[in-house]
């Protein structure tokens, strides 16, 4: 081995020739082949030489990418965590049960404005009395509740009561302090005006408005320090009926309200105010000190929060069995068909709604007819249960099911996941003999198969894959999809039932057009709606199903999908009675509802309300039962007199009027016309509705100042229907010891969280300020995405440049080496 001078080959600028000259820098270690160890690296064949280098730099770059990505996520995570901590600091006390919102209440309660904005504290409930009278299919419920204002100042409270579905309030009476007030039905604005006026004059006043279909709030103004408030409401509901089982519910969850977990947290919330454009930032919740409210176990709760409940059950038929799954009852009979039931003394009110179930002795009645005369009109209520028939006796009909799924932008997020799950579940429940098709729509629509196909494994697989791929995007054009789904290619085919299942949140503006389309094109198809999300457009859903003679199922959360779809499908599979219609024979029937009559499924009755001009002639309900024509005639003269049937009819009438409001679209009935019709019906039947409220102001001073409230001293001129015992029962002296003790504790510990004012005006002001607005999310991921995007692109570019630099350098070295070797070979002797 000798030292040898190394040569470098270089192109001569401008000439195209190459020149080989001694390498200018001095060699370090030169080996037998004349290469330095570093050169060795480049000089093997291209593939093997460059592989480790490529791997190295890709590895380095991947590491850099990862590091930067991780770092940026870490930064974001800490930022998020900081925000979340801030939020949590405010959030932690919110979960505590003492602070409530009107919408959370699942029992009647008097809420007083608290020191936390938009939230309330429940006034102690000293007594509740519930009186339910069931008369055939209608239940009338009278609720009396007694509260105390535990604060030592004036307050304006809200009484909330969660009504069962399809019920209507018609009576409100109150005692606030020593004043009795009674509600009258007025048009909404007028009622509010009367209330505001009374409030300003410092009189006791209450206003009961409908917030939503099943929630109303009752503002009670001018409750004095330590005053007792007694609220009495009356409402009516229909008895539920399913498979011969009659049932009734009363909202009575009482136990957990005063049992907060005692988290005490001091919050220092000082948002950075510099960005506010030069003016200060006000913390809207200045007083965040928390309180420790008394813990109550249900047993103790029963003592301090006593509930009495009686039910007079006049079923209209001989009663077989009665039971209440969650509460112990004392039962007494009055003849075959009447039972008197009451809660057992000292029974612990369960943490459940009160539920009462009863069955007929022997066969369940197949049909019943009740009537009530209001203002010269005969209101009829007929109910009809399909005759008992075993499922296997039903003519087996295969089905053609068309699913329509909404994948428009409004379904984005959890809704589309629910919808996909629901549809997937539905697909898996089809029988091989059924046929089906899937339609999806946003602002465009797509029909999966040309025609309904057999529900065999392959087709179901295709459909499930199709559903899986759906994403929520774009606008909502429901009409073309609906037209497509309603096209019936097998119109004459009586061996199959055609069912259209519509899965959507109903966020649309042209309801009326869709209703018209369903009414005109439904043919033999039945339209079922499955509402998705927590707040689907239930007007649309309900009405569409009604016109389409189907049913409406709502799915509110992903974990409900299976259960709800299971129940839904059990129904779909067993239509017992179809094509129902009602007619008067020898009598004029009008305004029948529901219109059209739905199909009846196993164990499900139809409850029909209508107006007759006289109680004569017959009511005929005809349809097809188990594949054969079937008819039931009922003599109007035999109708049992019932109570509240006019109200039931009115309630339905209002619901159908409300459904005609077109939300934002131009095709619906004029809003004002709907308003006027609703007002007319509600006023005539004394119902609280979207357009009418109950307003109450002082009716009478019942006792002179300074006198006790013992029953004996009461003047006997209470308005008709007022029960002196309930209204002037025991004063505080008469309260049982545990309740007294509780009250004292409550006053000490909770009173501080209630915002009471020294004057009535201030109380009203505070109450007003407490009604909060929810603000939507108002940040997009745009900036974050752009930032991350730029970072990634820069990285890629950087890597590419690097790779190129390495690559060209490598190639150059290789070329040089090859040339040198060639020279070396030439120089060999």
């Amino acid at each position, binding site marked *: 081995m000798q030292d040898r001078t190394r040569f470098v080959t270089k192109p001569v600028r401008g000439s195209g020739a190459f020149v080989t000259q001694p390498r200018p820098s001095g060699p370090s270690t030169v080996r037998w082949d004349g290469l330095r160890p570093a050169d060795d690296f480049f000089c093997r064949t291209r593939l093997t030489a460059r592989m480790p280098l490529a791997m190295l730099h890709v590895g380095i770059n991947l590491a850099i990418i990862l590091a930067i990505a991780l770092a940026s996520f870490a930064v974001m995570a800490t930022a998020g965590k900081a925000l979340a901590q801030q939020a949590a600091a405010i959030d932690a006390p919110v979960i505590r049960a003492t602070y409530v919102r009107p919408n959370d209440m699942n029992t009647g309660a008097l809420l007083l404005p608290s020191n936390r904005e938009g939230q309330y504290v429940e006034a102690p409930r000293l007594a509740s009395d519930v009186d339910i009278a069931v008369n055939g299919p209608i239940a009338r419920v009278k609720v009396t509740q007694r509260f105390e204002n535990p604060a030592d100042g004036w307050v304006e409270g809200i009484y909330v009561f969660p009504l069962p579905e399809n019920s209507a309030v018609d009576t409100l009476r109150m005692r606030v302090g020593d004043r009795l007030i009674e509600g009258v039905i007025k048009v909404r604005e007028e009622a509010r005006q009367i209330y505001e006026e009374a409030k300003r004059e410092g009189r006791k006043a209450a206003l009961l408005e409908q917030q939503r279909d099943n929630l109303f709030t009752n503002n009670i103004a001018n409750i004095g320090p330590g005053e007792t408030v007694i609220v009495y409401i009356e409402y009516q509901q229909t008895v539920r009926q399913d498979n011969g089982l009659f049932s009734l519910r009363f909202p009575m969850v009482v136990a957990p309200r005063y049992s907060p977990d005692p988290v005490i947290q001091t919050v220092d919330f000082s948002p950075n105010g510099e960005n506010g454009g030069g003016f200060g930032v006000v913390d809207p919740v200045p007083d965040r000190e928390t309180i420790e409210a008394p813990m109550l176990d249900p047993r103790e709760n029963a003592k301090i929060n006593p509930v009495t409940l009686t039910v007079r059950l006049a079923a209209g038929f001989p009663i077989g069995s009665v039971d209440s799954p969650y509460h112990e009852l004392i039962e007494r009979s009055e003849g075959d068909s009447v039972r008197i039931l009451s809660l057992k003394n000292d029974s612990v009110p369960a943490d459940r709604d009160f539920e009462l179930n009863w069955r007929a002795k022997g066969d369940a009645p197949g049909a019943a007819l009740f009537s009530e005369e209001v203002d010269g009109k005969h209101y009829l209520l007929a109910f009809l249960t399909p005759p008992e028939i075993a499922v296997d006796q039903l003519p087996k009909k295969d089905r053609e099911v068309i699913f329509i799924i909404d994948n428009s932008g409004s379904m984005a997020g959890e809704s589309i996941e629910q919808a996909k799950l629901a549809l997937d579940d539905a697909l898996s429940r089809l029988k091989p003999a059924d046929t089906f098709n899937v339609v999806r729509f946003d602002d465009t629509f797509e029909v999966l198969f040309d025609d309904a196909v057999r529900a065999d494994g392959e087709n179901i697989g295709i459909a499930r894959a199709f559903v899986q791929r759906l994403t929520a995007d774009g*606008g909502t054009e429901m009409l073309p999809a609906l037209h497509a789904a309603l096209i019936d290619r097998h119109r004459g085919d009586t061996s199959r039932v055609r069912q259209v299942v519509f899965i959507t949140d109903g966020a649309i503006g042209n309801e009326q057009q869709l209703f018209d389309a369903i009414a005109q094109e439904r043919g033999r198809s039945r339209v079922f709606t499955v509402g998705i999300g927590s707040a689907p457009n239930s007007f649309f859903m309900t009405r569409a199903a009604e016109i389409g003679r189907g049913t409406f199922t709502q799915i509110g959360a992903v974990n409900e999908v299976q259960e709800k779809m299971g129940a839904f499908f059990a129904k779909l599979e067993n239509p017992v009675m179809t094509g129902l219609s009602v007619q008067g024979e020898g009598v004029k029937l009008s305004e029948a509802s529901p219109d059209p009559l739905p199909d009846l499924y196993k164990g499900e009755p139809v409850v029909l309300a209508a107006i007759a001009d006289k109680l004569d002639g017959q009511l005929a309900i005809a349809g097809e039962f188990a594949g054969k024509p079937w008819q039931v005639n009922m003599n109007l003269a035999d109708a049992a007199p019932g109570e509240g049937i006019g109200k039931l009819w009115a309630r339905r009438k209002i619901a159908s009027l409300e459904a005609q409001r077109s939300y934002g679209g131009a095709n619906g009935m004029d809003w004002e016309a709907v308003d006027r019709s609703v007002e007319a019906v509600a006023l005539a039947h004394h119902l609280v509705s979207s357009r009418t409220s109950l307003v109450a102001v002082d009716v009478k001073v019942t006792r002179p100042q300074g006198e006790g409230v013992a029953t004996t001293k009461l003047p006997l001129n209470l308005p008709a229907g007022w029960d002196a015992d309930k209204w002037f029962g025991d004063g505080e002296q008469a309260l049982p010891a545990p309740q007294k003790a509780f009250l004292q504790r409550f006053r000490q510990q909770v009173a501080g969280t209630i915002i009471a004012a020294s004057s009535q005006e201030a109380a009203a002001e505070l109450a007003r*300020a407490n*009604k909060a607005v929810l603000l939507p999310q108002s940040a997009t991921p745009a900036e974050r995405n752009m930032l991350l995007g730029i970072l990634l692109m820069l990285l890629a570019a950087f890597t590419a440049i690097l790779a190129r630099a390495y690559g060209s350098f490598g190639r150059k070295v290789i070329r040089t080496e090859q040339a040198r070797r060639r020279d070396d070979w030439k120089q060999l002797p």
Partner: protein
Amino acid sequence: MRREAQVSSRLARAVSRLRWHHAVVAAVFAAGLALFGNGVWIKGKAVMAQFLLDRAFLTASSSRPADKPWGWADIRPMARITAPRLGIRNIVLDAVSGEALAFGPGHVPGTALPGETGTAVFSAHRDTHFAWLGDLQKGDTVLVETGDGTVRQYRIRRAWVARYDAPGIDRDAPERLIALTTCWPLDAIERGDLRYIVEGIEVDAKERAGQNL
């Protein structure tokens, strides 16, 4: 023919030179581009939609609501908010769903309409339509024009930060107020529960006449 052959052979050579690390680099670049594109799309949508909404808003009158801004839109323009000092104009929509807010500020349903007693609450994204909210100052004028052509003038009187579910907005205020709200902090990139709220009070016609004199 030959040219084609040349091109294809060049292509083949180019392809043969591709290595797996090229693919990685390309993928990273593509991912970056996609993310960036998504951000641009969100911003672009916000700007484009406003043009279409502006056009649709012109069709509104006292007797009929505005046309839909595009055929399949779920939303309708409801009002125009102008901040003259900042030179800002926004068309407000009648909804505040996530979809709607991508196109423009929304009027929070259930709150008063402009001109009614109470607070009319408007919300928009802090990084698109309400990016200017932080520049509003006390005493600034904000104009709200509704579909019937009425223009109402509001004077900004205060601003504060609060949680989204207890914003301290008085929906039944005895005056005619507007509240413009967006996410807080204004320059953060993460979503949060805090909101920045700017409140203005309507300057009634009498007072305005006084100003003009």
